[in-house]
């Protein structure tokens, strides 16, 4: 069962630091949701995440998991029930991928047989080739290591998982593929996720809700990706999400979200779009067409025609402005 997570006025003042790292963070993550903490460096996002499993202790305020304060549990006990993935993975170099995945079940005292079965299951779940399971971390690529890292965090089916820039150290192509796989993985595992990143695109892509933190450890806005792009709370958030926020919104929408026009004179040579294509990719395709229009088809049946104007109108309507035409 995924856990509900609640920050209540959670603050952190590191000893010897002049300014607090995090100031009165209050937010609630519903069970099964992915909450992305995003912000520039020095915004306290990693501190906020690490306070959940008490890798960093709260200075004031509280954090509740399913209504229970993290202060009540012994740190080691608490952590065994919270998945933990970090940027540099931190696999144990002296253990094989399979042994690494079995770390937490072993701590929880599962029988050997069950640990082995579960570890094999996870190898498959994270898309690792089975023959890599008995390799040592030094024999794996960066992407493979991070897959093992995610599998290790999921091993004991934690109700809550913490991920600190898990794809930050990977090359762009591997990162993109792992983000893709992560989106699919989210559907298959039922766990609440707190995900830290400094990359707003990653936040928009992977988050159900996004908490934007500003320097000094204050929460600037907590919203769904759509809301964040549509209605940034202030100038800081607006700048942080970037000048291309309408394009980012397109990435959140699909062709099927737009009203299609009846099929007119469409050249038969045009490759039709699928309704599941993101509007961002669809627009890119439309801009290459002399007429600015493309057919949309599913299973060989043409559903209608997508135009640049229709995409524009959709964005305007969402923003609450009257649409033209």
């Amino acid at each position, binding site marked *: 069962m995924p856990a509900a997570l609640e920050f209540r006025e959670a603050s952190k003042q590191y000893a010897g630091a002049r300014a607090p790292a995090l100031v009165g963070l209050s937010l609630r993550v519903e069970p099964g949701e992915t909450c992305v903490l995003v912000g520039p460096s020095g915004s306290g996002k990693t501190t906020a995440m690490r306070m959940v499993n008490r*890798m960093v202790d709260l200075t004031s305020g509280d954090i509740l998991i399913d209504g229970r304060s993290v202060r009540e549990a012994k740190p080691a*006990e608490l952590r065994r029930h919270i998945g933990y993935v970090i*940027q540099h993975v*931190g696999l144990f170099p*002296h253990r094989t991928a399979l042994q690494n995945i079995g*770390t937490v079940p072993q*701590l929880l005292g599962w029988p050997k047989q069950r640990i082995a079965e579960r570890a094999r299951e996870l190898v498959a779940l994270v898309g690792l080739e089975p023959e890599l399971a008995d390799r040592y971390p030094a024999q794996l690529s960066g992407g493979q290591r991070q897959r093992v890292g995610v599998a290790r965090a999921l091993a004991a089916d934690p109700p809550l998982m913490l991920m600190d820039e898990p794809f930050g150290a990977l090359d762009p192509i591997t990162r993109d593929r792992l983000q893709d796989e992560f989106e699919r993985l989210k559907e298959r595992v039922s766990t609440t996720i707190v995900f830290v990143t400094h990359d707003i695109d990653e936040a928009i892509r992977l988050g159900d809700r996004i908490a934007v933190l500003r320097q000094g450890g204050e929460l600037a806005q907590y919203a769904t990706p759509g809301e964040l792009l549509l209605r940034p709370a202030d100038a800081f958030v607006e700048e942080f999400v970037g000048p291309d926020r309408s394009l980012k919104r397109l990435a959140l929408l699909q062709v099927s979200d737009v009203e299609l026009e009846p099929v007119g004179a469409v050249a038969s040579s045009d490759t039709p779009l699928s309704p599941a294509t993101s509007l961002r990719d669809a627009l890119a395709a439309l801009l290459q067409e002399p007429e600015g229009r493309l057919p949309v088809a599913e299973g060989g049946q043409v559903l209608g025609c997508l135009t640049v104007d229709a995409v524009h109108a959709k964005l305007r309507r969402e923003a609450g402005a009257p649409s033209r035409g």
Partner: protein
Amino acid sequence: MIVAQFEIRDDFRERSCVADNGFCPNWIADNLDRYWAPLGEHVYLTLVAVAIGFVIAAALALVAHRHRRLVGPIVNVTGILYTIPSVAAFFLLLPLTGRGRTTALIALVAYTLLILFRNMIDGLDSVPEESRDAGRGMGLTRRQLLWRVEIPLALPAILAGLRVASTTTVGLVALAFFAGAGGLGEQINADLAFKSNVVICSVLCVVLAATLDGLILLVQRALTPWTRAVSA
């Protein structure tokens, strides 16, 4: 010295070779069994000294691993012990502990501490910080982290230190006769002029050092298979 020479040469076939203090294979073949007892003493002193040194160094390393500020002072003190020439140490200890194995062992143990301690600390320090962080974050207690992650990862360095300490100690035990502790050194000293005697003792020392070195290396290979895993 004269008496010793007579003792050691009482049984021989090649009178001229032996009389010339030469290297005499036949004499060696006939008299090899007189060397087993000194060799046994040599092995005993080496193993006991290294074992005691290992236990003390390990205790110091575990304390220093927790309290980092102790690393410097411990390195300094064991460093001073290391710089005292062992022969001098034997003589310095004579008035306190008298002649015999105890004196020899105290000096030999003191000599191993720096090598063993530094390798242990270096090994523990070589554990990747992210592995430590991940381990703690998954709920390993401090003790579990030490025994399941830090010590296994420190093993290559720890065992490398053990190899150096063992081979060095084999050499130093050859001087333990100054403390009256026996060993192959005493046997060499019994007839320094006789080549056959010196060669046997020296060869036995070398073989002993190489054997210990090889044994520890085998143990290391068995215990640390990941160090030979080649990158994909």
